[in-house]
């Protein structure tokens, strides 16, 4: 009797795992400095369900880019992953693979679009040549087909494919480079795509069209996307699930519409209030108090948001709140959930 039940839970567990494109557990990353290690990401668990868009929000310096790098096992010195596991498609742990296998996964399985697209393109080679380089590095046999596919993608992205392939990166505008970055992340048929601040440097109209393209391609190819940004507006528009990141920890997560409609963590509430909106009462907008977390914030024993929190009590200083479920898959890390701000 007990045997069958364990088998059942095990198979259920396996099912659950297979639904996840990426399932990261207990990720810890530190940056080594002369004065000691500074934790940048602490005990983060994150799941990216297959075929969904997850948004990760955090201020600059909150460790959101480091988290993405850790998921790809691409943290560079002085950073170091001290613990954790990242299960890809319910099978391999990326953090345990040999560097050669990791290299093959990046590009073929996982695509990545950097924040500053101009820094990730080779300034001395034309875009077309760089696609061929990528193909050779990943042992693609039919390079001609690869170029054809790249052209089709570029046309989808609304670019003049022939012109782009023959251009150097400095001949392209910011929006075009960002689109070229998206093409690079998809050209080897990656199923999982990480986008790091991909629309931050763009104008309103090109931002809207890049978001529209991302949405279309995601539906068409059933991609799993993780979108990292400090702009809550972009994330709220694009993502189905949302992760609020503060000082290296996830403080709230859940379905985007639910988190935005009824935020539970004081940081999330503050963040939503702190953006000027096109609808509603504009005078209700209120800036977030205090300054962004820095290297001193991590030394606090208690809640990391303590010094900026409008609803803190003394006991918040003593221990760190954990991520607890408030409603189905809506989780929040706060002792004072439900307390009134005006107190």
């Amino acid at each position: 009797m007990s045997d069958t039940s364990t088998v059942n839970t095990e198979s259920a567990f396996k099912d659950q795992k297979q639904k996840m494109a990426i399932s990261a557990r207990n990720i810890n990353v530190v940056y080594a400095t002369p004065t000691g290690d500074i934790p940048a990401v602490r005990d983060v668990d994150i799941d990216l369900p297959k075929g969904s868009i997850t948004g990760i929000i955090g201020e600059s310096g909150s460790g959101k880019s480091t988290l993405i790098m850790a998921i790809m096992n691409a943290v560079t010195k002085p950073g170091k992953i001290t613990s954790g596991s990242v299960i890809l498609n319910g099978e391999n742990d990326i953090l345990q693979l040999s560097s050669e296998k990791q290299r093959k996964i990046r590009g073929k399985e996982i695509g990545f679009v950097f924040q500053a697209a101009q820094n990730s393109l080779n300034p001395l080679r034309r875009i077309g040549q760089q696609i061929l380089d990528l193909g050779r590095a990943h042992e693609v046999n039919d390079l001609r087909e690869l170029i054809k596919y790249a052209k089709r993608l570029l046309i989808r992205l609304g670019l003049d494919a022939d012109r782009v392939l023959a251009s150097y990166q400095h001949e392209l505008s910011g929006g075009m480079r960002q689109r070229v970055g998206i093409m690079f992340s998809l050209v080897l048929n990656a199923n999982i795509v990480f986008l790091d601040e991909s629309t931050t440097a763009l104008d309103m109209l090109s931002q809207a069209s890049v978001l529209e393209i991302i949405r279309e391609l995601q539906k068409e190819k059933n991609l799993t996307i993780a979108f990292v940004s400090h702009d809550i507006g972009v994330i709220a528009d694009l993502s189905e699930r949302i992760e609020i990141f503060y000082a290296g920890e996830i403080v709230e997560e859940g379905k985007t519409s639910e988190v935005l409609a009824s935020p539970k963590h004081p940081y999330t509430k503050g963040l939503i209030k702190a953006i000027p909106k096109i609808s509603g009462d504009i005078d209700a907008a209120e800036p977030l108090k205090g300054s962004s977390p820095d290297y001193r914030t991590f030394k606090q024993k208690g809640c990391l948001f303590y010094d900026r929190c409008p609803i803190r009590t003394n006991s918040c200083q003593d221990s760190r709140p954990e991520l607890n479920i408030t409603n189905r898959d809506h989780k929040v890390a706060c002792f004072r959930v439900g307390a009134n701000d005006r107190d």
Partner: protein
Amino acid sequence: MIEIKNLQKFFQIKAKFSNHKTVHAVRNVNLAIPSGGALCLIGESGCGKTTIGRMLCGMENPSSGSIIIDGQDISKLKRGARAKLLQKVQLIHQDPYQALNPTHTIEQMMKATLKKMAKQKKKDADWIRQRMDELLKLVGLDPETILFKYPHMLSGGQRQRVIIARALTVEPEMLIADEVVSMIDVSLRLGILKLLRYLRERHNISILFITHDIASARYLGNDTELYVVYKGMVIERGRTERVIRSPQHPYTQALLSAMPILKGIEKPGKDRFVITSQFRQSEEEPRGCLFADRCPFKQSICDEKRPELVHKDDAYHACFFPKVRQVAAESI
């Protein structure tokens, strides 16, 4: 009071192996900002909104038209008098990371301009010290902890505050805020906008706010006028709230449609549309409407004739087929 009349600006671009090209950056712009008032200019990059700002503070000379500050046309003044008048208009740049000298502390930087002011006003070193503290406190910084610092030790938001404090040392009557928040983290943007609003309400400093983000324009200039600029031409103007709720020009509608929707709080406007074609500076001056090549609603006359800015029910628009479309997000 600051007025701009029929302002135009042409840039000559030297091209190798071919004829010089002329870019018409600003076309017949008229605007007026009363003292203590505000005005928002909206448009995408390359539309000429920054050039208008630069001409207003004397960093660029207009090709034609006039800029009138307190009743005096600045192009007709002698150098000294012009410089003195232009002191009243201060520009705050977009990039707080490049606007400060990295080798000077905040104290050195603030003192440099305050010394000149002290000389003009015949004040002593105590006055400088006092004024410095006062200004830094006004912009929300603690003088004790900030004066000895170098720019690299400050965050983007703090730098922008220092830059505003520096602009205030010469006691300006107007600030030109050119994309002041676009390089700053979203969570800190509102702090800077609130400061500008405070300066306007309490210190009677008028503000020309240049941005591509309509929501921040709505916060800063809720009670003022909004000008939408495309390729150097004002294509729609009106009270901010009116332009957002009932835009008439397709370009304004495209900008409003491009605002991200906050799921769970907002729902998209029912006529929302997305433009995918990109902004391009045309090779030849088009005969027709400047927006015709991207406009989803264009008709044959739009390529033939250029619409002028016309007045209609307390708003202005430059379109042959104006139609109000509900494109802005609404709260649920």
